[in-house]
């Protein structure tokens, strides 16, 4: 069936490929590009393990056709910080024990990036609603909420320092 040539930017690099109509974006990212930090959990847009940033918004890549991402700018967990460094969110998840098994963490971090972009100073409740589409079966969420709070504080400090 239909094949399509797509070109998109992923973690700052331009990628071109020929894809089938029905190829899901998460499979393209994991299998064609070998970026396996983006996980597949429920495969039904419930759990958020496959969350990536597409044109500045968090989306669930298991429910998005690869062909629709033609021309898009994508960030996966591999691209949230320079190699060898950690973003504020990554550091905060480390500091606050925001993960146990780590399966949900890439999705949690990408989702939290979008959350903090639209709401740099969220309340605890706003954080909990903000990550409501990302399931964690280990932490009980409390440490994830603390992680997002720490990152928000650090990002605010950095912003203040740069003004």
């Amino acid at each position, binding site marked *: 069936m239909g094949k399509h040539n797509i070109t998109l930017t992923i973690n700052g690099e331009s990628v071109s490929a020929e894809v089938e*109509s029905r190829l899901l974006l998460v499979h393209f990212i994991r299998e064609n590009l070998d970026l396996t930090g983006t996980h597949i959990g429920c495969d039904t847009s419930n759990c958020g393990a496959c969350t990536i940033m597409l044109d500045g918004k*968090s989306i*669930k890549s298991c429910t998005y056709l690869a062909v629709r991402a033609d021309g898009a700018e994508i960030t996966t967990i591999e691209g949230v910080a320079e190699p060898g460094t950690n973003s504020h969110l990554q550091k905060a998840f480390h500091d606050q024990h925001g993960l146990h098994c780590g399966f949900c963490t890439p999705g949690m971090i990408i989702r939290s990036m979008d959350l903090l972009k639209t709401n740099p100073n969220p309340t605890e409740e706003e954080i909990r609603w903000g990550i409501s589409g990302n399931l964690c079966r280990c932490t009980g969420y409390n440490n994830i909420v603390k992680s997002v709070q720490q990152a928000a504080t650090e990002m605010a400090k950095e912003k203040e320092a740069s003004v």
Partner: protein
Amino acid sequence: MIPANFNYHKVSSVNEAIALSQKLGEEAKYMSGGHSLLPMMKLRFATPEHIIDISKIEGLSYIKEEGDLLKIGAMTTQTEMEHNALLKEKYPILGDAIWLTADPSVRNVGTIGGNIAHGDAANDQPALMLAMRATVVAEGTDGTKSIPIDEFFHGFYMTALEPSDVLIEIQIPKAKKSSGGAYVKIERKVGDYATAGVAVHIELDDSGVCQQIGIGLTNVSAVPMRLERGEEILRGQKVTDDLIAQVGQVASEDCEPESDLRGSEAYKRSIVNTITKRMLNKALERARQ
């Protein structure tokens, strides 16, 4: 899960979409956000031969008041609606619903047009549109048509749209002074489809008499449902606790829920009664502000 084979087509205008849909015939489906259709395709509940991607059509994403109407472009995402200042200020019922719809990442992609055109009584927007007496504007082979919401939902996943019609705009009567609306759904877990949901829109005159009332129910019937008998009880009346209790009772009697994983029929009828009363009170409170 991978959908069955299909051919993907991208279009950049409504006319192009209509022409392509006509050419490809009934096995073609439009996709906007795809967050209702693609999950069904992955489960093989839907196996269209062709997908026409209308999400790249420009100019169909907007929220504005014009004349007597609030106009929302069909491709406006739920996130865009959630953060819109006009909707927050004058149409809080929309925020009530969006907050409870799926989760932020899904709302980043899902559109209002898709939510309505999908024709699913489990989706949240249909009940709101019934309550607010919206009009659905679509373009098709025979031009532009305006479909009153009461004529829009025909059956299980069936709407008044012809296969090649593209839903382009939702029109809602502009919020009047002393009007208010509210929506809630009971859900097993955050982001779930409604166990039951109720949307209420009410308009009062200066003496507090109910001039117009709309009540829509979510996921307690095969087709999104207007609670006509409940509306009749309140229209032209000064709204009292007694009347509100009557409407709650009527809602629990007239809805048509089925027992499923989300609850038994009796449980659903009971919560419809309760949340109908709650939403009437909340809408009234907003109308009186």
